């Protein structure tokens, strides 16, 4: 399978309207002898939101970690902006600066809000005044209004929802080429969810956003595309509306049926 996903909802190997920005080709991963990902291949265009859904243990989070090169023992090929990760000139650390990863549990560093936002910048950049950049990124993460008067307060005094948006701002400071989110709103209140989703919609106009979620309603709200994974494989790729109204594969239909039962 090597499918190019288009934000408008068309799926076509030959007629991909925008050049694929992130490409995974036969990516496999085994951890402790257990196969986590099995020959996963897909391409992501330069803009738009893609929701990764599937049951627990399907390999969604592992897939994000493979793209971020946080696992060392994966096989296959991953390229970003046409450059294979193995051939990236600056090495793995430099590559990661171009990939924004937001984990499920926000991890703020024991420093001020301001220092957290600029954490990923180089030493030289951190020594310069980055107030404008910090403000811009906090705006993008929908957090500026809540923290503008206490930028130098410890970051761990923020609520979990605010910490998650701070992590988003911290990733955005590096101007990533792609944004990966691993259940970013799993433990957040509805307002924080709404704010993060609004930010993702804005950001997806400029970069590809790949979001793992167990919240099917959220996947529908995010629009864009859906990749349904099960047992380490990609089962179905479709536009959101198509997937939820007319899932093609039996596994997807079963998953949606169970999920609806769970919701009830």
């Amino acid at each position, binding site marked *: 399978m090597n499918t190019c996903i288009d934000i408008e909802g068309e799926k076509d190997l030959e007629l991909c309207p925008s050049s694929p920005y992130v490409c995974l080709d036969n990516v496999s991963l085994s951890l402790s002898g257990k196969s986590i990902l099995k020959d996963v291949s897909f391409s992501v265009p330069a803009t738009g939101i893609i929701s990764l859904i599937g049951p627990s243990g399907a390999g969604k989070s592992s897939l994000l970690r493979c793209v*971020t090169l*946080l696992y060392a023992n994966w096989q296959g090929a991953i390229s970003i902006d046409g450059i294979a990760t193995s051939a990236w000139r600056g090495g793995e*650390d*430099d*590559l*990661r*600066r171009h*990939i*924004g*990863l937001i*984990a499920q*549990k*926000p*991890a703020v*560093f*024991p420093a001020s809000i301001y220092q957290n936002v600029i*954490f*990923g910048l180089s030493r030289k950049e951190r020594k310069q005044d980055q107030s404008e950049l910090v403000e811009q990124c906090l705006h993008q993460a929908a957090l500026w209004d809540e923290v503008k008067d206490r930028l130098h307060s410890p970051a761990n005094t923020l609520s979990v929802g605010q910490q998650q948006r701070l*992590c988003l701002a*911290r*990733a955005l400071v*590096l101007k990533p080429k792609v944004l990966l989110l691993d259940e970013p709103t799993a433990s957040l209140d509805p307002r924080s969810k709404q704010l993060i989703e609004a930010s993702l919609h804005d950001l997806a106009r400029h970069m590809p956003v790949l979001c793992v979620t167990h919240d099917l309603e959220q996947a529908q709200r995010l629009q864009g595309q859906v990749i349904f994974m099960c047992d380490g494989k990609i089962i179905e790729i479709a536009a959101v509306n198509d997937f939820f109204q007319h899932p093609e594969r039996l596994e997807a239909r079963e998953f949606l049926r169970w999920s609806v039962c769970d919701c009830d």
Partner: protein
Amino acid sequence: MKVFLSLLALPALLLPLACFLYVIIQALPALNWELIVGSDTTGNLFGDAPNAGHGLWSQISGSLLMMALACLLAAPIALSIALFHALWASARQQRLLMMLLQALQGIPPIVYGLCGLIVLVHLLHWGICLAAGGVILAVVILPLLSSNAIHALQRIPVEQTESAKALGLTSAGIIGRVWLPAAWPGMLTGLLLAMARALSETAPVLFTATVFSGVTWPDSIFSPVTSLQTHIFYLAQEGSNQHAVDVAWASATILLGLVVCFSLSARFLRRYEESV
């Protein structure tokens, strides 16, 4: 059941307290400020003037010097071991390392002292000196320091490390900007406990570093020193000389005070660490 278990636990609480009080009471006749800050006049203990003033400053400074040297030598090695454990060791190597550290902690200190005597004092011709005592004490406290450093690093949330990696930080950046700032209270706690342990070890320094008298301040690290631990050991053998025994109790009180200071500091630091 609760009362029964409480009664069983009571001796564990009261016994150290009773020992501490007994040592202080025994030390009272000799304990005074002059004894702590006075320079060494060990000869007076056995001379014609048993009540003449003399001090333990040389012993206190000798003990503290050896402790400081041991910590200076052991701390960077312990940190390196902890970083190797966290960064590069495979799961098997990690298990092996922890097993080794536990085994090293179980070795009787006198065995370390004997090894120091043979290798450092005789084979390397260092002689009885501060350096030999510091090195042997460093070996004694290394497992404790390493284990504490490893546990301090393990307490850092995985998410913080992953976030730092995802931001493109190099291994050095992660160590310097995430791990050490987060782990320093735990590591400092371990260091304080190790200092207390180094102060309380007698056998290793008895064989390698200390003499009873004739030393005030070492000329170099290859000069012998005198220490509180060995001073108590020598004085305790002078059972017939009441003044010597009193000074032994006073030395024990000062040593106990120093050890308790380091242990309590470690305890307060751990409480601070847990509250952050």
